[in-house]
């Protein structure tokens, strides 16, 4: 076992241990200790659900490069990407499940769904996606690629649909100027693909994945350049979003954009989302020498993932923190009736726990499953 893996095991177990408090609090006392409320009604868990679901869908898209499109350079990466889907998707579902006031009633969405609701559509589609991903994994474990392809095609279509669907879940809200634009459903599949590419870069860079060092270097180079291109698209989306909002001068759009760009958490946008999540990785990954240092490329992948995670929060929180009426929060005060949102310790704890569980599942799976012990195929 490499040092990186050992460190990751320790960190993952530590995260799970830290998560026990949050899981316990949520299961025993409900939502008593959360900080989201009735105005900022979706908090860290929803943002991280978007992030985890994005990684799951993006990883499936990446797996299709091997299992559907048969791209030689990506041969043997599909199983890792598919496994990444299977370990991150439950994480997303735990997070969104914990966010429900009555998670024990989730069965109602299956037995008495209202399909005009984007949320109901997503619950059904995500469930189908999980089933398809598991079926694909089982088939892939048996090594029968012919049977795998049709399942992967179906899964790929669902992955793209759920990615756009999550954007639409926000976008259909006419009450929120910042949500209601066609950009969200359009940009989420791209951002999710970026998540998937970044995650594969992390796996290839830190854990090898490919036996052939030369092919690994070539793969790192291709992943790096693809990721830089996707970061360019992400930067363009951000520019379009915020420049239009500021240029249009409508009160709500300006306020929300201002909150992200110049508000108290502007450092998260500029430092984490743009600096760490776009600029630094773009510069480092563009350098040809980086591909010869896969761990450095992998670190850049981690940076990109952090930037994407922070990006989810800057989509959700500021938009909800804009009051529907001036003076609403002063009209009646009380717990959960404010516009300032900072996740509670319990919310962080749950999120850490989920990160730890997914990471641990990934490590144990890639260590123990015979699926990952077969001799890697060599690209022609």
């Amino acid at each position, binding site marked *: 076992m490499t040092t990186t893996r050992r460190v990751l095991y320790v960190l993952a177990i530590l995260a799970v241990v830290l998560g026990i408090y949050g899981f316990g609090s949520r299961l025993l006392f409900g939502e008593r200790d959360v900080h989201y409320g009735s105005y900022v*009604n979706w908090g860290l868990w929803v943002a991280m659900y978007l992030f985890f679901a994005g990684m799951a869908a993006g990883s499936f898209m990446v797996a299709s490069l091997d299992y559907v499109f048969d791209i030689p350079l990506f041969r043997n990466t599909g199983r890792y990407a598919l496994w990444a889907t299977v370990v991150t998707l439950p994480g997303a579902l735990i997070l969104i499940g914990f966010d429900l*006031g009555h998670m024990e009633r989730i069965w109602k969405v299956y037995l008495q769904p209202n399909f*005009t*609701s984007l949320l109901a559509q997503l*619950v059904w589609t995500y469930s189908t996606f999980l089933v398809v991903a598991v079926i694909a994994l089982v088939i892939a474990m048996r090594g029968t690629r012919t049977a795998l392809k049709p399942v992967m095609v179906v899964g790929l279509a669902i992955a793209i649909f759920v990615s756009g669907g999550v954007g639409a879940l926000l976008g*259909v809200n006419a*009450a929120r100027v910042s949500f209601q634009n066609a950009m969200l459903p359009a940009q989420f599949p791209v951002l999710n693909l970026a998540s998937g590419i970044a995650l594969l870069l992390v796996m290839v860079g830190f854990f090898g994945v490919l036996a052939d060092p030369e092919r690994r270097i070539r793969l790192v180079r291709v992943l790096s350049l693809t990721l830089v291109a996707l970061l360019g698209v992400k930067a363009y989306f951000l520019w379009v979003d915020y420049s239009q909002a500021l240029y249009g001068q409508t009160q709500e759009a300006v306020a929300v954009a201002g909150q992200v760009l110049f508000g108290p958490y502007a450092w998260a946008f500029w430092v984490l989302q743009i600096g760490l999540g776009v600029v630094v990785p773009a510069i480092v990954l563009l350098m040809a020498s980086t591909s010869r240092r896969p761990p450095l490329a992998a670190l850049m992948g981690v940076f990109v993932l952090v930037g994407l995670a922070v990006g989810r929060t800057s989509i959700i929180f500021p938009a909800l923190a804009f009051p529907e009426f001036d003076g609403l929060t002063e009209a009646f005060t009380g*717990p959960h009736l404010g516009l300032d949102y900072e996740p509670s310790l319990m919310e962080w704890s749950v999120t850490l726990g989920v990160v730890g569980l997914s990471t641990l599942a990934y490590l144990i799976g890639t260590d123990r499953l015979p699926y990952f012990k077969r001799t890697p195929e060599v690209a022609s």
Partner: protein
Amino acid sequence: MSEHDPATRNGAMTRRGFIKGALGGGALTAITAYEVFAIQPEPATGEKLPPPTGPTSTLSSADDQTDVLERMRVELLRALDKPRADRRWVMVIDLRKCVGCHACTIACVSENKLPPGVVYRPVIEEEFGTYPNVGRRFIPRPCMQCDNPPCVPVCPVSATYKNEDGVVVVDYPECIGCRACLTACPYSARTADFGLTYTQDAPLAAGLIAGRDAGAAYEKASNFEYGTEWPREGHESPIGNARKCHFCLHRITAGELPACVTTCIGRATLFGDANDPTSLVAGLIARPNVTRLKQELGTEPRVYYLT
């Protein structure tokens, strides 16, 4: 009036002085009034002016001293005799009469036994103008009971819907608590019940905090929203649910006006069946000074404001 005036002695008015003054003042007023009306010119057309109309003519005219509450109660009973689908409950809020006392908010909290962090009817206070020309306005904001409610289609389990009376309701046992309806509502008219109580952090020294136990017991007692008993225990609904104003349906069906209506000290909040052409509210919502919040969204609110 000087210190030596016989009408005053030691600063106090005598009975004789008061009567003389009153008679004198009254006579002067009568003469002045007569002169004013006497010089009132006839209209240029020579026609008589129409009888005065305005806010007071519908609410409580000189020949009808019935309190609007009584009138609305009678109209409510009349509406209850109709099939449910034939009624159209609306609320009219006269912003010129609202003094911002928040009695409606408190009445609503009390009636529905709302826990901390849950509010159905806040009163938003607005200041406008620049000194010395400044003003204040108070805008009560109940649920708008929209005819095209954005909160309904987003519910994944159809736990929220417009009932036969046209009131947007929440079926508590069905609600999964996803809060998608909170995001969808353009009026922030929904709040989530996170299971808090006012007494939960009160000191535990039994017997030392007056009323603590009684307060705690009161908080655990049931409310009767939607005509059902909802005890506040464990994690049972409405804890974990989205909650909202429902026009006090449980009171309406019992022939009582919503709590916010009966407690409004200025009679600024009015309620009734807009499908009854003789009802108070039907007359008021046909006024040119009526408006609704965020009409541009096409939500068709059933709460009207008189400005």
